[in-house]
């Protein structure tokens, strides 16, 4: 094997090792704890997707305009204009 | 299109299988040409071309075999991943049983791996000689293999298109459980099964260096079968540390450190090499000392690995399950 090859293989291994190290050293537990806390406080587990107002923002929510599917759905607006 | 066909593992798996089949198809056509026109005594350009073509066939089979060896565990992984989508399935066992194609498919895959390994062995012998003595044999052998491979891809497609995501399937506890599941063969019970397991292993070690080729093949196959049942019905329960958990697939999951892949891999390759060495010595009269050594090494590792789970459990808990 020639030097260049050994050099590049070693480089690849170091880079891979760095990625693996980063992966193993990531603090997942406190992260998970924080997420659980948010859910415990709010009871809502919907991801904060940057969706438009008339897009589904809650998982499993179906939004449709019953008469005309292209129009903004009715059920997205009621939080503001509730009776 | 159902959800099964959209899952990425299935797409990857089927795509790979289809691509490999395409190559195998090319190899089959080349093989037909070889069978039709082969005559090593002739000095024609055509004969020369056919000899070159045989290299294509062997590269394709070599390549495909190598990938099929990767694809078999991947297949297990795929159906394991599908158990999330199929209601009732806790692991691959339920998904494999989701329709009538699953189990034959898995069996066929193992048979194909065995046979193509054997093909490569014959091919090596053929190349060592100066007049291609086994060319006809290996060509016919390949055509047989190709028929099996065609059956495999048909079963692959049938299997994955017929998994229902609405009908619940049984999970492994039902399939291998005590009630209603298929019980042990030959009227064995657990102690007899274990005695047979260790006896057969000892027998294999003892006769592998003798000349009883047929006995060796039979013993290896029998051992593989008994080993399968022993792992599912006895050793597996120690891997899961649960006396009622009997499943050949769950041990491939991350919770058990993927030990199933190693365990089954050792058993399959060990058995295969034992059979191949017997074939090489019995039929072709070759020396296969190296094969025998590796095979016994693998099987020994397999037996030790199985037993160590029992031993460790006993050491840790002071009782047996």
């Amino acid at each position, binding site marked *: 094997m020639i030097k260049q090859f050994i050099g590049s293989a070693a480089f690849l291994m170091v880079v891979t090792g760095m990625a693996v190290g980063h992966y193993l050293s990531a603090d997942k537990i406190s992260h998970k704890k924080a997420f659980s806390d948010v859910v415990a406080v709010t009871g809502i587990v919907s991801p904060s997707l940057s969706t438009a107002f008339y897009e589904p923002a809650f998982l499993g929510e179906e939004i449709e305009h019953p008469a005309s599917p292209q129009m903004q759905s009715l059920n997205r607006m009621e939080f503001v204009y509730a009776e | 299109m159902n959800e099964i066909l959209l899952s990425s593992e299935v797409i990857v798996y089927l795509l790979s299988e289809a691509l490999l089949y395409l190559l195998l198809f090319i190899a089959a056509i080349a093989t037909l040409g070889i069978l039709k026109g082969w005559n090593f005594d002739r*000095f*024609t350009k055509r004969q*020369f071309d056919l*000899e*070159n073509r045989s290299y294509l066939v062997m590269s394709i089979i070599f390549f495909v075999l190598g990938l099929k060896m990767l694809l078999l565990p991947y297949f297990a992984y795929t159906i394991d991943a599908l158990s999330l989508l199929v209601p009732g399935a806790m692991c691959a066992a339920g998904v494999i049983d989701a329709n009538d194609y699953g189990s034959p498919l898995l069996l066929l895959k193992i048979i194909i791996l065995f046979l193509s390994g054997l093909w490569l062995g014959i091919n090596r012998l053929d190349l060592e000689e*100066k*007049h*291609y003595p086994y060319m006809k044999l290996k060509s016919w052998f390949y055509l047989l293999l190709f028929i099996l491979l065609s059956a495999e891809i048909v079963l692959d497609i049938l299997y994955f298109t017929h998994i229902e995501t609405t009908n619940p399937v049984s999970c492994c506890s039902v399939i291998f459980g005590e009630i209603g599941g298929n019980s042990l063969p030959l009227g064995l019970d657990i102690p007899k099964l274990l005695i047979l397991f260790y006896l057969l292993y000892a027998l294999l070690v003892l006769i592998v260096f003798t000349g009883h080729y047929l006995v060796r093949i039979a013993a290896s196959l029998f051992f593989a079968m008994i080993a399968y049942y022993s792992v599912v019905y006895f050793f597996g329960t120690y891997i899961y540390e649960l006396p009622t958990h009997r499943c050949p697939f769950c041990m491939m999951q991350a919770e058990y450190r993927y030990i199933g892949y190693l365990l089954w891999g050792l058993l399959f390759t060990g058995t295969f090499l034992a059979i191949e060495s017997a074939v090489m010595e019995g039929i072709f009269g070759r020396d296969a000392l190296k094969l025998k050594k590796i095979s016994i090494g693998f099987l020994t590792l397999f037996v030790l690995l199985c037993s160590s789970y029992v031993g460790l459990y006993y050491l840790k808990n002071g009782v047996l399950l």
Partner: protein
Amino acid sequence: MIRIEDVGKRFGEGENLFEALKSITLEVEEGECVILSGISGSGKSTLLSLIAALDRPSSGKIVVEGELVSKLPDLHASAYRAKTIGVIFQHFNLIESLSVEENVIVPLINSGLDMPAIRKMAEQSMQRASILHKASQDVASLSGGEKQRCAIARALVNDPKVILCDEPTANLDRENSLRFIDTIQKLNQAGKTIVIATHDPLFEALPFESRVIHMADGMIGKHGE
């Protein structure tokens, strides 16, 4: 020893049929130096490639060092080439992107030897062909004569019994040609069997014992002179 029995070689079929060799019978003793002379197209190059098992005859038998080489499967033909034969081609046929040493080790890569042993053999061979001083230089930067010596080093690296040269001096000037003949003489003295296909008149009168065989139209003419 090379024994050629009733060897013919035909190319093409039907109207395009061309008979390059017509029933050649020839024996070359061990340690002998044979010059195949004749104009281009006389079949001498074809004969050389048949001896090297680079090609197969359409009929007849070729036996080299006890091996029937006229009908060898590729795996054995190449093993035979790697073990028994050293070839020097007219156009040198070196891999231009590699250095001299890297070119010289090529025949030994699949020999089962390890790298240090191969390096050592390459060094000896380059010494013999007097190109050692350029070992690490790229082939592309060499002169014609140096390339020739590199090709010789490559042909000698596996210590072959038989050396085949195809028009070795066609691309060389007179000085380098004489130098080449000098090398051949040394090899011949070392006991190698040498077959040279050439139309260079320089080889008609070599300073050492050799047999000249004239070829024309795929047939052998008068023996020796």
